[in-house]
């Protein structure tokens, strides 16, 4: 398997990834595919997507995240988006977008807590 351009780490039953570069469309789709492939391979029950390094999130990226969440849900997993920047959150709600199907948390640590809480239910 080709090494994904954005590192996806495994920690216990869940995957953690934190894109550090601006995701142009091709890269975003590649990223999504890499994540989904990894989830299948590792049978991960959760994904923590750390977007703290992303300074602009537009409709395209929102859609990719939505697709990750939907596909992951079909496979029985949960996605937590963490570290959303205030200005990005502001722009998203103003445009009328919502990140459907994902949980949110303030940082990586809290994100993992959220996942564990969900799994304990």
């Amino acid at each position, binding site marked *: 398997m080709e090494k994904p351009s954005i590192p996806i780490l495994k920690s216990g039953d869940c995957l953690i990834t934190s894109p550090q570069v601006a995701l142009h469309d091709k890269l975003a789709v590649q990223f999504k595919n890499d994540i989904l492939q990894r989830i299948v391979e590792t049978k991960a029950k959760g994904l923590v997507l750390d977007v703290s390094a992303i300074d602009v999130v537009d409709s395209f990226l929102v859609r990719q995240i939505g697709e990750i969440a939907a596909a992951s849900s079909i496979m029985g997993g949960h996605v937590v988006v963490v570290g*959303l*920047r*205030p200005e990005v959150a502001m722009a998203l*709600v103003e445009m009328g977008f919502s*990140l459907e199907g994902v949980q*949110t*948390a*303030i940082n990586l640590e*809290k994100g993992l807590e959220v996942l564990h809480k969900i799994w304990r239910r």
Partner: protein
Amino acid sequence: MLKGKTQEPIIESTVLIDVDTQKLKRELSTLLEHNAEEIRSQWIKEMQGQGLLAALSPTETEEQSKVIYDTCLLCLKTESYEAAQKYAASMAKKAVLQTMTVDQIITGLLILRDVYGRFIFEWYQKNPTKWRNVNGIYEPVARRILNIATQAFVAERESTIKQLQQQEVAKLSAPIADVWEGVIMIPIVGVLDSARAKQITESLLERISREKTELIAILSIGGIAAIDTKTANHILRTVHAVKLMGSEMIITGIRPDVATTLVTLGIDLSGIVTRSTMREGLEYAFDKLKLKVTKTS
């Protein structure tokens, strides 16, 4: 109004013989162009006499006086004042003539207006009718240019005041109170308009981003006089934005009349946690944080 020394009837200066207007305008433009150096030198001389140019270098005086003179001529020739507006804006913003005060600049322009006017008079004085017609072309242009100049200064001043005001309002409008570890409160009193709501949201989101743990924000709107659709929707968006960042915002103090207004406006409050009083809001927050307030014996 100059009264002629002859027996000719006195004509109001606003009367023009239309057919000749364009021709006269061209004649006037050419006249002022050909005599540019003479008129401009006279203008500079008079300004120097009034001490207006003391803070300017000779180069700047030369350059800017030429630009202003040519710009005025352009307005006369083309009937377009865009160049004048651009230059006036740059004066107001201190991009040029930084060392001159507003008062000095306006006086300088008034002197130019006089110098032009006198020149025109001296040229046409043997033909009072023609002078009146030419003056009728010149005066509106001169007036408009001066108007543009003063307006530019006024606009700049108003802009500065507005910015200062906004900064002051910003300081007052987003008071975020730390109530407990993990709990913040934003009490809103008075009028909540879009601008203020935006300020508050931005401050709140910024505050949340700086925290290491999730917060419960209590937005208390009990003190708001009235609420409109725009503001209500903005508050809802803020709740969602806070949630996207992994925290939570609840709303307290929605008075019955405000609640009715919101329902009438069709605002969907489902999914938003609300409580009547600040106290109940706090109880919710503590409950979420698994905190309990007990009396010590």
